[in-house]
């Protein structure tokens, strides 16, 4: 495409500028220049380093912009962290994830791929946990704000003084204690109201879903590993124990039904 070609030209030019600046920086520390000691050399080196940094920055910015333009969906660009964990888009991490999610081969690379997947599940869980925690932290901050705002506007009825208020001795101290207790009660109400708003928001529900999903995926990976290890070592596995308990439960049901049938038959029918 013409647009892509022009962008590539620009990128190449910027990369070349950066390379030249770096080359000049390297020359600045060459043996000839090194002979001139003192502030002049230091100033020159500093200026060249600055130019190098700026040139490479321009290149990297343009590179990121070009990739974002080509990968319109969020997370598709390799510069968007949201894309690092999923197989959307093209190139880079996406290709790696697609390969990992692809069909396993029978005899090679199986354990390695499983290990990488477990690592990925852990990263996904950690990311979902941080996302959830961030939402909750924002909720708390909003709760503090509402509380602060309401201090001047609250019309809630004051509650009777707490039991300690009478025990504090002087009237002023009792008043302080009662006011403190009411302040706490007021904060509690304000916080619960704000957090209830948060907990019913779409953002919260989505973060909660993601966290649960990621946590279960991670646990499933770890459990599968534990089962493989137990099988390898000849130890009983959780799945085997569950099978035993399922059989036992079914047998108890059958025995109960038989006992009931026997009892009903001897009693002439009826009953439970």
């Amino acid at each position: 495409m013409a647009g892509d070609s022009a962008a590539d030209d620009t990128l190449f030019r910027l990369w070349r500028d950066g390379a030249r600046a770096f080359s000049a920086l390297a020359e600045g520390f060459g043996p000839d220049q090194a002979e001139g000691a003192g502030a002049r050399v230091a100033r020159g080196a500093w200026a060249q380093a600055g130019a190098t940094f700026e040139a490479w920055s321009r290149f990297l910015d343009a590179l990121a912009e070009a990739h974002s333009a080509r990968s319109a969906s969020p997370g598709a660009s390799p510069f968007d962290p949201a894309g690092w964990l999923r197989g959307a888009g093209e190139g880079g991490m996406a290709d790696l994830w697609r390969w990992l999610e692809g069909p396993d081969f029978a005899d090679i690379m199986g354990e390695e791929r499983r290990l990488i997947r477990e690592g990925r599940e852990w990263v996904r869980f950690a990311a979902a946990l941080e996302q959830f925690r961030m939402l909750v932290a924002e909720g708390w901050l909003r709760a503090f704000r509402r509380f602060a705002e309401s201090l001047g506007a609250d019309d809630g009825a004051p509650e009777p003084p707490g039991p300690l208020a009478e025990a504090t001795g002087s009237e002023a101290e009792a008043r302080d204690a009662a006011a403190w207790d009411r302040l706490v009660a007021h904060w509690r109400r304000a916080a619960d109201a704000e957090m209830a708003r948060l907990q019913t928001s779409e953002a919260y529900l989505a973060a909660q879903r993601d966290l649960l999903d990621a946590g279960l995926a991670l646990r499933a990976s770890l459990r599968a590993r534990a089962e493989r290890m137990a099988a390898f070592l000849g130890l009983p596995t959780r799945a085997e124990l569950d099978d035993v308990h399922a059989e036992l439960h079914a047998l108890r049901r059958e025995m109960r039904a038989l006992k009931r049938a026997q009892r009903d038959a001897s009693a002439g029918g009826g009953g439970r």
Partner: protein
Amino acid sequence: MHPRAEAGDELAGAMTGGGGGGGGGRGEGAGPDWMGAFRASARPACAMIEATRRMIALMDKLGEARRRSVRIAETPKDTVWQQGKVTLSRYRADPAVPERRYGPLLIVHGLVGRQSMTDLEPRRSLVRRLLAAGVDTFVLDWGNPTRADRYCDMTDYADHRLGDAVEAALEVAERPRAALLGICQGGVFAAAHAALYPERLAALALAVTPIDCHADAAAPVPGRGQLNLWLRSLPEDLVDRLIDDSGMVPGALAATVFNGLTPGRTAAKYTADLMEIAGDPDALDTFLRMEKWLSDRPDQPGELAREWLVGLYRENRLATGRLSLDGRPVRLENISCPVLNIYARDDHIVPPPCSRALKNHLQNVAYRELEVPTGHIGAFVSPRGLDLVAPAMTALLAQAA
């Protein structure tokens, strides 16, 4: 606007002190008198001294409490039936009221909390009040399910085990029919049992019981019913995966979820609230007893949890007649005994509409609703809740006698 962007704007407003909805001016002298008194009397040094004094008092009291063990559920009772981990106990009659005039009444809790809640302490004991009214009272204890119980489902609890316990109580009490008081999840067990075996029950009382788990969706109330919303918003397979993963729903997970429903209250509980009651021995004792009850939360067997969370909360099977126990459909309209339906006005776990929906399913039975001005647990552990619940229970049993 994206919710996160909106949140960011609000935070930016908060940081700069800008407006952002709500609140309003904070002029000098505005607000209620108690706030004015607080600001006017804000003497930091005195406040610090007072806080320190409370802290020391609290440490003293907690130290005393450690030395003497915290006891709950002390009303004398005898185990009259046992099946595996499940036990049925009969409370000894109140010495002042030796005649067992009413009953037998079986108190049926769920597996979300232990049965000791209805006998938390002598001053806050529904059991003691019932005994004082002459009610022959039994309590069912489901025990502590382990992973070995993961395949136990609602048929095991609401049909088989509850049925066997009812039979045992009838035999011990030498009566033809029993009454059930089902609480929360235990209320669903009791209602299902009453629908399947109407001939066995003389009366049915349900308390804070979710009958129609979608009844709150039409008019959601802020701060209530988040649990319902959360479960409805989860993808269909996620709850299944959760149960398959752990085999059980851990009690600790349930506790975390419940604490998360009221984060402000939870944050204040071990700080400001505890400091507030530090100088009140009775209040501190009650607090510690409540803590003991809360910390003893059993795990839910996986298959029971699946029917509870997916079948009832997500798919609303009880209210829509699609719940089956042991292959038999549970039809609430088959309930034939007098019914008392207790709901808590400020219940944030089971919104009142979810409980009150029961009346839409009953046909030609004496039905009474009782609103208790408390939260979910307060109906059974607060004196104002007990003042209403205990007499209503006695009246129901007298009606059924």
